[in-house]
């Protein structure tokens, strides 16, 4: 039996079918003189899993807070379900937020934490019995049956994370925001939670917006990934597309899988201190400062003097060290001008090489798998 608290009205979902569930339009957020978000435009469709990737200071947590309704944007609009959210306080938006530090209520038990929204929201409060049933449902959903009466400080970090998730999902929010949900977990837990989160989202058919600084997480879990750089959206697309062609040097940098070499375009080639390669086919050859980009896994390491295959570009670098991480090994090199270069071998496909530290080697890659950005990274 649900009761409606007087005077409070939940924002009813509206909008035409096919209309994106969440629309952020031209949002700019300033704190005094500091511009934290700049002209952010994005759409999220119902049932999508979107991740937001960005380093700290990129404004990703602020974006979540704006969508959740803890603050109003300085400029721009946020629409949820076709309704404008400006002026609508957080508790009426039916948007859930799973906090980075979980923000569990320390004075309530696990079951009471999960039931909190159902029993205390401003609209549609559930009776104790109905809430209890929902709590049991949620506990089963996240795999925490039997912990209903535990105190919050009696459970482990991974369990707390799942309580936070259950608490938010219990109220069936239109959109679920997750602020670095896996940040506080150790590596093993993180790996298993990645799978569980994705399964949960699919099973509930919910819309997730998941913010993280970890590119692996962002790529692995998303239907679409948003890369934020200093308050602006650098790229917003399916992960495979972003990885195949990062739109800017910063996006490539955020994905942590690309070599980025600073230099300049001159006379139709990419030129630097002590090296030069032809421009990749199809890249604009406007003269000026530029960054050359090629993925770690595209690069081959050979002895100097090995004949260069057709259509490959190459460079001579000095081997510094290597990192072995189970399925891959990464070789680290220094360019003649001191910039770094890496080659990553996936050991299922290629055999590892034995390299001498301090020796020069010939590195090559298919020229058409590289890109050139007409900008230089700071």
């Amino acid at each position, binding site marked *: 039996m649900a009761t409606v608290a007087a005077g409070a009205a939940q924002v009813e979902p509206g909008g035409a079918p096919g209309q994106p569930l969440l629309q952020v339009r031209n949002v700019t957020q300033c704190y005094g003189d500091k511009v934290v978000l700049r002209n952010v435009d994005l759409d999220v469709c119902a049932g999508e899993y979107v991740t937001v990737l960005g380093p700290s200071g990129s404004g990703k947590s602020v974006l979540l807070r704006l969508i959740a309704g803890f603050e*109003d944007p300085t400029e721009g*609009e946020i629409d949820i379900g076709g309704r*404008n959210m*400006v002026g609508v306080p957080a508790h009426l938006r039916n948007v859930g937020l799973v906090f980075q530090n979980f923000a569990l209520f320390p004075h309530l038990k696990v079951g009471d934490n999960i039931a909190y929204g159902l029993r205390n929201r401003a609209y549609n409060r559930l009776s104790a019995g109905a809430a209890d049933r929902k709590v049991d449902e949620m506990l089963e959903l996240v795999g925490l049956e039997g912990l209903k009466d535990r105190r919050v400080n009696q459970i482990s970090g991974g369990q707390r994370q799942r309580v936070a998730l259950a608490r938010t999902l219990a109220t069936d929010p239109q959109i679920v925001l997750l602020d670095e949900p896996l940040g506080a977990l150790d590596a093993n837990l993180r790996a298993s939670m990645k799978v569980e989160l994705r399964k949960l989202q699919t099973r509930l058919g919910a819309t997730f917006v998941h913010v993280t600084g970890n590119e692996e997480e962002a790529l692995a879990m998303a239907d679409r990934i948003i890369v934020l750089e200093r308050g602006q959206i650098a790229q917003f697309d399916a992960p495979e597309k972003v990885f195949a062609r990062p739109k800017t040097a910063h996006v490539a940098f955020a994905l942590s899988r690309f070599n980025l070499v600073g230099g300049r375009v001159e006379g139709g080639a990419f030129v630097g201190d002590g090296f030069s390669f032809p421009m990749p086919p199809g890249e604009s050859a406007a003269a000026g400062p530029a960054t050359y980009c090629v993925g770690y896994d595209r690069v081959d390491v050979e002895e100097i003097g090995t004949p260069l295959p057709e259509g490959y570009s190459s460079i001579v670098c000095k081997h510094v060290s290597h990192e072995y991480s189970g399925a891959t090994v990464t070789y680290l090199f220094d360019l003649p001008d001191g910039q770094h270069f890496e080659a990553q071998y996936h050991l299922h496909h290629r055999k590892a090489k034995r390299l001498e530290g301090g020796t020069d080697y010939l590195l090559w890659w298919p020229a058409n798998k590289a890109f050139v950005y007409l900008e230089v990274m700071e």
Partner: protein
Amino acid sequence: MSKRGMVETRAGSEKARRRRSSLIGRMARYWQLVPGSAWMILFLITPLLMMIYVSFWTQTSYDIKPVLTLDNWQAFFTQSVYYSALWNTIRVWLIVLTATFVIAVPVAIYIGLFVRSNTVQTVLLVLAIIPFWTSFLVRIVAWKPMLGQHGALNILLMKAHLVTEPLSFLLYTEVGMIIGMIQIYLVFVVGPVTFMLSRIDPSVIEAARDLGAGTGRIFKDILLPLSRPGLVTGAIFVSVLVLGEFATPASLSGRKVNLLGNVIVTQVGSLKWAFASVAGVVLTVVIALVIVGLLRITDLRKEV
């Protein structure tokens, strides 16, 4: 859906945003400031302003008239009975302040720095602080049987053969009053200073030692700055309380010592309101100068 279709709906939301962060919204947020400030302005600031105003009124035998004059002020600064009260107040304040600090700081250092166990630290601190929870007047009264000619102190001194005759200068004198004040106000210094010292991470001091700092250096560069908020807090407490005193002088000095507080009380007793107000304003100025001076040493607001 075209972007153009969206633009029309934006006009409405712009108004919504302005409304929320406008008058009603902002007023709703500001309401929390109102009760506290209203109470203080109405009931504290206004009476103080009244006091300043009345100090310029004309004083008749038992009444005051709102005719402005400087007579009261002149009387205050020309009659030695009154301006000596000002001097006494400042003098007693300095003595008590210095004495409480000299006595209390070693205690604070002992508890805060030398005692390792947290439990023992708490116990010792609580023991030193508990007298705060006893009645102020009871504490005054309790000194009488200590300091008198037949008092406990004299009995002990005579028994220990340190004196042959009971000391008579202990009670109903300025000395007795000062001793009483010191004991009463020690609590206010021990508390804050011990608290600040106990918060200093001992590894900081050890690190300084490792780097070769001597005791003096450690004192000057580590202990003093880190405990400063506690020192200033204690100083403010003691100063405010001592400067406004009248009960302890009245009881323990045998009415020999007159502080500004006593002047106010006696003047009010004879309904000389205007004159009392003059003393009040003088006291206010003294306290204001002391507080401002102490706050220049640390801005306490940052410490909370």
